[in-house]
């Protein structure tokens, strides 16, 4: 409850500082959407050359992409900590965070909230709805509940992985190039995983469970496929809790190794 209140306070401050630079705000929204649009266009181009991808139709793959955009938008809003290592470790701003009475990760996240990313989630939802009707899928009220559960699970998976990644800078001297690498790997989770070989599939499902952020939960709403990924959909919230738990533990342990900067 107190954390919710804090969130609101930080959000107000975000609004005060950022909304004064209106152009900046809209450019960010636009560039976010352009980035997502490019990915979508890539999918459409692929389907100009083939009617189906590992048994998945164009509308289905776009549906998966639409689903992916929802948790990704939420994740980007709350976990916009790309510059964590630079700002908090190298420049030592973590000192300040650690002398305040709220969980340090929470403070870092709040200081970096990025609400414009949420617009991506709305666009994703719209894409889902369009594909839903195009595919003529049945609709139950339960689907809304399931969607919520899956989205929360997916956000937790992302959050856990990126928390752990950011926490790496507590352990390693220099910021590593692993974040861009991860950023590339995560893209694979949006496409039907059965088009990859077994190895990659295993990694994407169980080690870096990006498949749980896209294709697996989304397949719950689609028609059953031969390999029936949707059976795994139920694991989404469980994976979310596990991954986030591990990420947080890794972070908390990292904080103990924080060494500060300068004098």
């Amino acid at each position, binding site marked *: 409850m107190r954390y919710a209140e804090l969130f609101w306070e930080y959000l107000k401050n975000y609004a*005060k*500082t950022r909304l004064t630079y209106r152009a900046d705000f809209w450019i960010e929204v636009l560039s976010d959407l352009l980035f997502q649009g490019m990915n979508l266009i890539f999918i459409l181009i692929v389907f100009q050359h083939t009617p189906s991808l590992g048994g998945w139709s164009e509308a289905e793959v776009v549906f998966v992409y639409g689903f992916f955009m929802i948790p990704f938008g939420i994740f980007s809003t709350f976990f916009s900590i790309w510059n964590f290592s630079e700002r908090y470790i190298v420049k030592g701003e973590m*000192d*300040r965070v*650690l*002398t305040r009475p709220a969980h340090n990760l929470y403070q870092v996240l709040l200081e970096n909230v990025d609400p414009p990313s949420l617009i991506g989630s709305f666009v994703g939802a719209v894409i889902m709805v369009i594909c839903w009707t195009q595919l003529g899928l049945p609709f139950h009220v339960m689907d809304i509940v399931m969607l919520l559960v899956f989205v929360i699970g997916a956000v937790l998976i992302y959050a856990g992985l990126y928390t752990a990644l950011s926490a790496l800078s507590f352990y390693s001297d220099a910021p590593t190039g692993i974040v861009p690498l991860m950023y590339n790997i995560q893209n694979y989770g949006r496409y039907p995983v059965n088009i990859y070989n077994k190895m990659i599939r295993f990694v994407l499902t169980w080690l870096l469970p990006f498949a749980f952020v896209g294709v697996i939960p989304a397949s719950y709403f689609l028609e059953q496929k031969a390999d029936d990924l949707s059976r795994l959909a139920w694991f989404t919230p469980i994976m979310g809790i596990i991954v986030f738990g591990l990420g947080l533990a890794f972070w908390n342990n990292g904080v*103990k190794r924080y060494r500060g900067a300068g*004098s």
Partner: protein
Amino acid sequence: MLAIDVKDLRKQFKVQKNREGLSGALKDLFKREYNEVTAVKDISFQIPQGEICGYIGENGAGKSTTIKMLTGILVPTAGHIKVNGYVPYKDREQFVGGIGVVFGQRSQLWWDIGVIESFQLLRKVYRVSEADFRKRLDNLVERLQLGDLLNRPVRKLSLGQRMRCELVASLLHNPSILFLDEPTIGLDIVVKTEIRDFLLEMNREHGTTILLTTHDLQDIEALCSRVIMLDDGRIIYDGGLDDLKSRWSKGREIQFQFAGHTPLAKLQQLTEELAVTWSLENDVTAKMWLPHEVNVSDALSKVVAGTEIRDIKIFETNTDDIVRSIYSSGSAEVSKETSGQ
């Protein structure tokens, strides 16, 4: 009750060794070598509640590392710390609610928003009630004369204005211990004095324990009843400032300006019975150095009796000189030999 209790505190850092040149860099890529650097070496001290204690030492002596361990930012390698009844790094979130921290070189305030908005945010973070907050803020604003600054964004404040705001920010939750890491660095003399007066007043009224590090020994003279001096990670002096001065200043110097030319031999002859030394500055000016054992009036009367004097100046060794000589010798132990003489 003890505000701060530190026993055998140690902090070691692993520092990566960088080998020279391109080939060294390539070697480092595959096999890293590390040096263990001990920044704080088994120090122990205790600070009772309500004391203002100065923590001094050269750059790199381990002051900041100690402060960071005391405030829970760093986890010590070994030893015991208890601050305000807590082990700082263990119960961090509860612990920091009872302390205030100001790092002179780093801002706690949000850069882009008005000062008052930063304060409001801190109020929420520290869970201070609106009524308490108002009362304290009004009080602090009045004392530090911040009235017209409150609505300006932090980036538009001068260093002195910012520093006063930082102090307010660290005191809004009424902490019982205040840690100040170089609070007066880069400030002009007016602001420095203002901040010192304010700290003294707060210490008197609320009994706030203050631990400050500084390079400005005037801060120490103005504020501290006690000094802890650190060198290369070890405590080399812990005690009163007056004690330090009397132990380390070996004597005084008196400069005479005579009416006419006075030869050195004559002066030495005048003060034969006393253990003083003379040096000539020029024809009419001479300096007499006398250790503490020698009474100033004795020496003066001897000189006055035999010469005609235009002017006299007495130089007391100041803290700066004392501290400089301790730093350069690297130990306050020497002082014991001197005072034992």
